[in-house]
């Protein structure tokens, strides 16, 4: 690169004005900003959430990626058809399904066992995207805790109970079997 190339536009650092050279006016300006924040914080306008006493506000619970749930249909049966698409899509391999022949007329298979290792899960939401019948969904439950590793492996009953717990707050994406319209 030649410095005398006419194609080059040189951007010059501007000269300091008198206020900048005098330093103190700029200092007063900076101090005013600091004091403004100090005053607002002392008046209680902080962004921090005092967690155990104050629950954080989740703005869009329907797209939040928290604990999983297994949805139920209108008859209270598990919606899952044991197609293994979620287990295939899962990058962390945390979904374990045993599919057996379905006792019901409207589908061929259903999961006899459906376990998710919540500690392996990376909460990417790809299982939810892969599911053809909207059976697995991520809820907005963010405070998932447990005292042992075994406790954190959620089986089918546990995942269905998460659905019962959250179904009123967070409606299913589609009511019937067969995926979203």
């Amino acid at each position, binding site marked *: 690169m030649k410095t005398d190339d006419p194609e080059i536009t040189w951007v010059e*650092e501007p000269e300091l004005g008198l206020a900048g050279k005098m*330093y103190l006016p700029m200092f007063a300006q900076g101090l005013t900003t600091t004091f403004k924040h100090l005053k607002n914080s002392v008046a209680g306008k902080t*962004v921090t959430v005092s967690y155990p006493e104050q629950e954080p506000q989740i703005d869009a619970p329907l797209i939040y990626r928290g604990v999983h749930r297994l949805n139920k249909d209108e008859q209270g049966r598990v919606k899952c058809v044991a197609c293994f698409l979620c287990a295939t899509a899962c990058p962390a391999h945390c979904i374990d399904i045993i599919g057996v022949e379905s006792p019901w007329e409207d589908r061929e298979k259903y999961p006899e066992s459906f376990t998710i290792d919540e500690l392996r899960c990376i909460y990417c939401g790809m299982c939810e995207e892969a599911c053809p019948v909207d059976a697995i969904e991520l809820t907005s439950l963010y405070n998932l805790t447990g005292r042992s590793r075994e406790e954190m492996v959620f089986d089918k009953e546990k995942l269905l109970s998460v659905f019962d717990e959250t179904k009123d707050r967070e409606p299913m994406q589609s009511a019937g079997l067969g995926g979203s319209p």
Partner: protein
Amino acid sequence: MTAIILEALIKIALLIGGLMTAAAYFVLLERRIAAWIQDRRGPNRVGMPLTKLRLFGLGQPLADGVKFIFKEEYTPAHVNKVLFVAAPILILAAALAAFAVIPFGSMIPPDWFGRTEPIKLVVAPGVDVGMIYVFALSSIAVYGVILGGWASNNKYSFLGGLRSSAQLIAYEVPLGLGILAVVVAAGSLDLEAIIHAQTTQGWCFLLQPLGFLVFVVAAFAEAARLPFDLPECEQELVGGYHTEYSGIKLLLFLVAEFLHMITASFLIVILFMGGWHLPWGLTGDPAAESIGWVPAIVRIVALAVKIIAVIVFFMVVRWSWPRFRFDQLMALAWKVMLPLGVVNFVVMATVEQFGGSLSTGVKMAIGWGTFVLSWVAIAAAGPLIADNRARHDLHPSQIDSQV
């Protein structure tokens, strides 16, 4: 004799207890103010142990202290052990000893044990060279920093120690010039006498604004507070001179740093803001030999409020101003603060010598005129401004030939 020793010991106990507690709580205040300025809440959880009381986080200093005491006190194998241990002790001892001549109030009435003289609220009352004593001890504190950096045998610590020594030597000159003008105006080096002089002449920061500015900037640098905290800037030097320290030794260093800040605040208030004095006779008759309980307490409270205000200013400035580069730091000391200090001293000495009959208003006008004129002159000369722009008027070959 016994009574004098006992009185001094009681004052020392009160002062060291008070200072250590104050340093601990100023750490909490610093963290809360930092949080507030950053729109956070800060430490507000730790309260009374074994109860649910939170008390705005007032238990935090205690928890911090206990944590430091129970941490492993690790001494690396490559250090010079004697100096490594001596450095934090030296720095804390020097920082505490400086308070021997600093008054923490005026006096209290002699209501007990049949005393007739009022009790002066200073450990060593009537030391004529008090200011020089404080100055000498704050220089000794530099030894702690340099020894800590040197004994650690670590390049980051060493760099921190070196920077600290260069910075403190540079800023002691304007600090001394700022003090000198006040001493000339007050006619004494005794800190109590300087306060008394200000009760009659008016507060020095109104009479000598230029000296006040020079002194405050130099005091920030001496206390190694932002924007002058180059000896320990985390981004460049890990922790600076205390990188290798842990546990209670690190705590001693941190407490000593806060004590330096408290000393600097005391000096700013005593030398320039009238110490315990308040205008309109709120603090009683300054010339009286003995005072009652009410003005005595008002004086203590006035001094404490002023000092806390200065410390809060220290803490707010920390989050307002970015750190100087080292060459800027040196340029500020030698090219800005030193000439300004000399100008202030010369003007104030002239006023003192020939302007004895001038009214306070005229003296103030001279002070503020000197401040504005010399500040604008320094700004126009711009010694801090380095032109780093590319030279397009030169051909690359010309630049090469110059190199």
